[in-house]
């Protein structure tokens, strides 16, 4: 047996010495005060360094764009799993798609576009450089009129072809500041195809605007602060006679003489894949 002199002192609250967890009130006070000062100092230093760092940032253009060499592509209507499944006879099943498209296309209404944006010269970059220190802000944007989507504009056919089994899918290119997606006046364009086994099922496609081009006049993008009314160019794909009751895996990609599609790891850089399945009971 150990002849421990101190016996077992209660640790949590020692009534003899008035110690709570091994410290008296004044000891606790002192140590807490120390940490308060310490953390205020540290926090202050953190805020200071953050502030200095933020000062170095440009409000209009990010310092680096290391991750954005190839812009991502996305489709509308978009669902959780990149699938468009519906039955033309069942209005309920496609209603949400057309609604989503309506909402998405509302800012592209010609009236809005004419009001906010310029009618630019096609096939040329719409460059609005700052002259030295003087910011040339706000920057103008070019009109992307809803009507240019023609059959997929939702104006003529308010169901975007969903009711007739000829659905429209809108493709957009992710916005990246300063990106110039083509040179020598060649606008990038979208092509779509089916994965090998579905090649027969995809049928004919129609692209709007013609050839599925993203016209150069919509580039470069100057950021949401400088170019408040920027209208992202769109390409609509209309599946004219897609096979029903089969899964069709469609892959669309950008064709450009400056952009490459992303590597193995990024399935959405410069391309986009989605599944389309139209079910039909009375075939």
């Amino acid at each position: 047996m150990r002849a421990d002199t101190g016996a077992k002192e209660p640790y949590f609250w020692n009534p003899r010495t008035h110690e709570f967890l091994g410290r008296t009130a004044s000891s606790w006070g002192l140590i807490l005060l120390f940490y308060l000062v310490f953390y205020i100092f540290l926090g202050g230093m953190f805020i200071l360094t953050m502030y200095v760092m933020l000062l170095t940032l440009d409000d209009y253009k990010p310092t680096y764009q290391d991750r954005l060499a190839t812009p991502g592509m996305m489709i509308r209507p978009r669902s959780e799993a990149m699938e468009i499944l519906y039955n033309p006879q069942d209005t309920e099943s496609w209603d949400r798609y057309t609604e989503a498209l309506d909402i998405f296309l509302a800012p592209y209404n010609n009236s809005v576009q004419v009001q906010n944006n310029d009618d630019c010269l096609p096939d040329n970059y719409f460059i609005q450089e700052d002259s030295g220190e003087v910011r040339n802000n706000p920057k103008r944007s070019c009109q992307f009129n809803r009507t240019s989507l023609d059959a997929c504009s939702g104006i003529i056919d308010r169901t975007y072809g969903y009711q007739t089994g000829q659905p429209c899918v809108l493709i957009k290119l992710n916005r990246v500041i300063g990106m110039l997606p083509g040179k020598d006046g060649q606008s990038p364009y979208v092509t779509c195809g089916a994965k090998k086994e579905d090649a027969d099922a995809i049928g004919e496609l129609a692209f709007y605007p013609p050839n599925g081009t993203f016209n150069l006049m919509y580039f470069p993008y100057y950021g949401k602060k400088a170019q408040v009314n920027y209208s992202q160019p769109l390409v609509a794909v209309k599946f004219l006679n897609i096979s029903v009751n089969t899964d069709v895996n469609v892959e669309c990609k950008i064709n450009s003489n400056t952009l490459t599609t992303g590597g193995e790891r990024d399935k959405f850089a410069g391309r986009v894949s989605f599944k389309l399945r139209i079910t039909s009971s009375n075939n």
Partner: protein
Amino acid sequence: MIKNVVLQTTHFFYEKKITKSIFYLQDSYNMFEMDGEGKWNAAYIPFIVPFTIGQFLQDDHEITIEELEMRYTTSVTKGLTSRMASEVLERDGPNELLPPKGTPEYIKFARQLAGGLQCLMWVAAVICFIAFGIEFSRGTLGCFDDLYLAITLITVVVVTGCFGYYQEFKSTNIIASFKNLVPQVKIWKYRKCMVISVCILGQLEANLGLYLGGCWESEPQSKTPECTHENPLETKNIAFFSTTCLEGVATGTVINTGDRTIIGRIASLASGVGNEKTPIAIEIEHFVDIIAGLAIFFGFTFFVVAMFIGYAFLEAMIFFMAIVVAYVPEGLLATVTVCLSLTAKRLARKNCVVKNLEAVETLGSTSVICSDKTGTLTQNRMTVAHLWFDNVIHAADTTEDQSGQSFDQSSETWRSLARVAALCNRAIFKPNQESLPIPSRIVVGDASETALLKFTELTIGNTMEYRERFKKVVEVPFNSTNKFQVIHELEDPLDLRYLLVMKGAPERILERCSTILIKGQELPLDEQWREAFQTAYMDLGGLGERVLGFCHIYMNEKEFPRGYKFESEEMNFPTSGLCFAGLISMIDPPRATVPDAVMKCRTAGIRVVMVTGDHPITARAIAANVGIISEGSETIEDIAARKRIPVEQVNKRDARACVINGGQLKDMSSEELDEALRSHPEMVFARTSPQQKLIIVESCQRLGSIVAVTGDGVNDSPALKKADIGIAMGIAGSDAAKNAADMILLDDNFASIVTGVEQGRLIFDNLKKSIAYTLTKNIPELTPYLIYITVSVPLPLGCITILFIELATDIFPSVSLAYEKAESDIMHLKPRNPRKDRLVNEALAVYSYFQIGAIQSFAGFTDYFTAMAQEGWYPLLCVGLRSQWENVHLQDLQDSYGQEWTYAQRLYQEYTCYTVFFVSIEICQISDVLIRKTRRLSVFQQGFFRNKVLVSAIVFQLLLGNLLCYCPGMPNIFNFMPIRVQWWFVPVPYGILIFVYDEIRKLGVRRYPGSWWDQELYY
């Protein structure tokens, strides 16, 4: 079959006339037997056991020889029959000690995999597997990350387990290889004889002096056939296995063999289970418990918080797992093992071999050393220390290398005395040792004659040749043990007188003298000279030295002409009326390095207690000589003598020193012994038995000391085992002692223990630094998760990255702290109190976690937010972004500039953040390793580049960090991204802050010792 054993002097190789069946008992295992022709039988054959008995303590020593013969069905004169002997062998097996049972290898390995922290890691891995299983069945993208993490975790546990196992294996191997250095057991067997292990000396022939060997009993113990004590351990008619026979002849009957001998039992007891945990093992266990507890506490808290906030159960489980991974210092145990084994290697170079790695640190916390005298404190070699002639005491040189002062050798008396000493001596050098320095040559002869031979060799030159010049006529060997005389012809052929020289116990020699040599003149030996002799004899005796008297006579050439027939039996020559030449006294002198070492122990707050079998006076003299009893310290007896009062009236507390002999110790209760140890700081135990050594050790431990004990004999093993650290002697030690010990001194030198203590203290300090370094980064590893869960920013630091910090980049720097030099003279501090001075104390943990760790976390977040902001994600946008950021279907998430990011782009950005956070921790850890170099001194005082290993560790850490960042392929394998160079510099201000802050802390600690600052911030 023979079971009677004759014990002969160990100088057997020079005794030619040996009859059959004579055994030489030298060491525990080195038993030799010679055949009738005096040739060695070179066959190596394991022991054969004659027979054995079952009981440990029995009455074999008390019964008569006839009863003994009955009991063992043997004959004292003829021994066992062959048939009986082989039966016994079959029954009991060979006469050898079984090696202690080792733990099976697979259990050792399994233990490495199932430690406290490892178990936590297993739990984490299982959680990952479950998460993977669930996500996989749901078909979630990216579920394979969990699988990879699980596999990584298991790999980590297995790899660190293998490493630990390898370290353990290596340290056992060091011990095994050390065993090979020690002469191995060699058994020589002749015909059907066997070697004894324990014999009863019931049949002693003639006058037997059987000496129990080793350093323990430096005074030989004579053995007699009579039972002198009811305790078999104390009685004089039992000789134990492993004792050394120095002189004499005996016959005995074997009563026990192998593991059934007392030594066998001691050895098996000593090697048995119930190994007490070493202080460092307790420390580490204590620490691991706290860490594991905190990890689970934090993990569970955040699990609950996450559930409360509304995360799914699975996600909350993954948070729990991630916090465990971040909080557990995976590399710590490896670091500790490496640090300890480095020190063990360093110690091995300084002649201390550590058998158990943890013993290194135990040595450092030692507060009492119980040391043997002979061989440890002393040279284990009788040496002439003083001479008395011409009525003056002259001091001889007793240093090991003969570097001391010599005395005046011009006197005529000295010449005569030297002649007597040279001629009246049977000891001879073994041939072919001319190249060796005289003190280390091997001599055949007893201890005092050896001392005299070496002394004359050193002072008058070639003694062997000198003896040849004086032809020996007759020699009268020790007719009583007290004197020895020789008659020689003189070297001058014209002088036809004979010279008789004699040496022996001084008072016996003086009786025979009628004259005394003073300055070459023969003066009558009157009362005055007798008194002078008495004074000198008492003085020398009081020094604890063995004193011999020398005298001579030139015989009348008429009465004893040339060719006179001297008869040694009848003594037809004068044996009285001789001329007294002088006294020579001998002692086993202390080793040169010991007084310094004892002094060092004293300043280091370590008590040195001498425990010896020697005579109290000798013990005390040596103790005073080496400083165990310091100058001016008095014993109770001294005070009584000074004040002229009876011993009983002396206040015991006044006496600093105390010499207790075995007899007194036997009568003391344990409380009395404790009291004696408490009240007298300087203790010497003389005439003690090995059992008493154990009692002394236990008493010291009761007083709360960490006790180191030295020992060499087998019977020391219990004390060695009981001690917190047992130290066996590498040269003189028996195998059993080495087995029981934790550490072995290869040079048997006490000073090496002190070196060991110094290293032990250093490693404790350095481990503290190393652990502080290792702990610090757990906070910057943990805070990213806390912020991730509570503020929902994209994850700043991944699990795999954490594992890289723990197990790759930070291992080398933390090990390099083991090479750090001591900050101050650690040998001027008191030994640490194992109950109060913990390895990981509150101040260390709090300082590492809440101060340095906090700064590192801020550094990490600064760099993280910088990398995010510069890529387009402002800090305020990051807050609450988690669910969108991690949504794998969201391919166009907008950043602060309106740019849209795909999931993969965001993921790579997240990896960039991991890397940036990793780099921040690395930069801060470089600063951390620099500040950890010292706990009190400024780093400028310690020197930045003095620890070369640490510098190279920092370089290595940076190179490895760069490799991880910029090696192609890293992003997809280990989630490291090639980050922009400037992000390496964002945490630098915080690194500088850490350094400056710690310098301020140290300055405060140095300037205001004992202040609030010192108490709260010194770890």
